């Protein structure tokens, strides 16, 4: 008799805990997955469109009101991006950016974390030469003189070059010339 009375309550309690756990898990999974899904799409689009561009680099025009791919674009910057897959081999990055204003090159992991950034003051007049490898890569990595080896936390990386755009036409032309030196191989 007692057992018969307890069974429905026990069942209801177990389901209540189960429902709560499912709701919490769905909440946590959404928060965890959202930046990864967004980055996966950005990497996919950048890879598809950059494939046809010189040096594997996507070089969009300066952002205006028609730019609706990435939220909160900066209209003051000229961008260049590369989608890198370092799962099977390292990625070689090079740039000779002779530009008198602010610029930076940032690397983003597939969860959107910015794990490296280098700006014009950091780099100075030196040419930038990077070899980007996956942290747990199984392929051999041979250090080379004047090439900096950078370890990525995962196998997919987004590179983003930012260059401050001046107002004058000559300055904008200089920015475009400097942007063309970026190569992602």
């Amino acid at each position, binding site marked *: 008799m007692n057992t018969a009375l307890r069974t429905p309550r026990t*069942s*209801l309690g177990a*389901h209540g805990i*189960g*429902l*709560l756990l*499912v*709701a*919490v*898990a*769905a*909440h*946590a*999974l*959404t*928060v*965890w997955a*959202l*930046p990864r899904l*967004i*980055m996966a799409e*950005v990497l996919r689009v950048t890879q598809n469109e950059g494939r046809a561009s010189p040096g594997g680099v996507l070089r969009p025009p300066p*952002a*205006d*009101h028609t*730019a*609706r791919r*990435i*939220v*909160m*674009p*900066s*209209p*003051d910057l000229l961008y260049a991006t590369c989608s890198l897959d370092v799962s099977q081999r390292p990625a070689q990055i090079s740039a000779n950016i002779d530009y008198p*204003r*602010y610029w*930076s090159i*940032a690397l*983003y*992991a597939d*969860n*959107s*974390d*910015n*794990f490296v*950034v280098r*700006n014009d*003051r950091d780099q100075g007049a030196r040419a930038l030469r990077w070899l980007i490898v996956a942290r747990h890569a199984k392929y051999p990595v041979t250090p080379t003189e004047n090439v900096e080896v950078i370890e990525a*936390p995962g196998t997919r990386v*987004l590179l*983003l070059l930012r260059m*401050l755009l*001046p*107002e004058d036409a000559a300055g904008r032309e200089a920015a475009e010339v400097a942007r063309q030196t970026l190569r992602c191989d």
Partner: protein
Amino acid sequence: MTRGRLAALYVLAILVGLGSAWLWLTQVGPSGVDAGVWRVNLLAGSPSADAYTRARVALGALLALDRRETLYYIARTDERGEPLRAQCRYRLSGPVPAARWWSITAYDDEFFLFENSVRRYSVNVDTAPRDATGHMSFEIGPEVTAGPPPDLPTRGDGTLLLTLRLYNPALTLQRDPAGLIAPRIDLVGNCP
């Protein structure tokens, strides 16, 4: 309880989990510190960001840099605490920020740039109008209006979001972003 009803309850639990995450990320203000009506998230772009910060940044400011490189201050309200609106006119005023380079950009309610005839989407260290003391002083508002045109045009009747970007901020600001004497945002005249 029938098996069908139980399955429906579990589906409902999943929807509650998804919905609560979405509401939390989109409706609850981002964490961070305030400088006047501006808020800056100290972990945006950082590998040490928590999962909520990372998700919010992905939704509203994807591909941010860390605070050594750039500080992003965001304003959604004016000095009275009222939400910024694209159909209202505002005056921004205050000292020039201590950074190598800075800009203030206006975004619409979808976080994109406002269409306008002069193709002006931001004011920056080079273009910001100054007053006699050297402080920035300029107006943001709808393009079609009586009187002088705004320095930074908006359009429509949705919400307005302002972003102040500081590139290579001074060390004092990197250490204490709340110490910024941020631009005031005051409503000019009446708002329709």
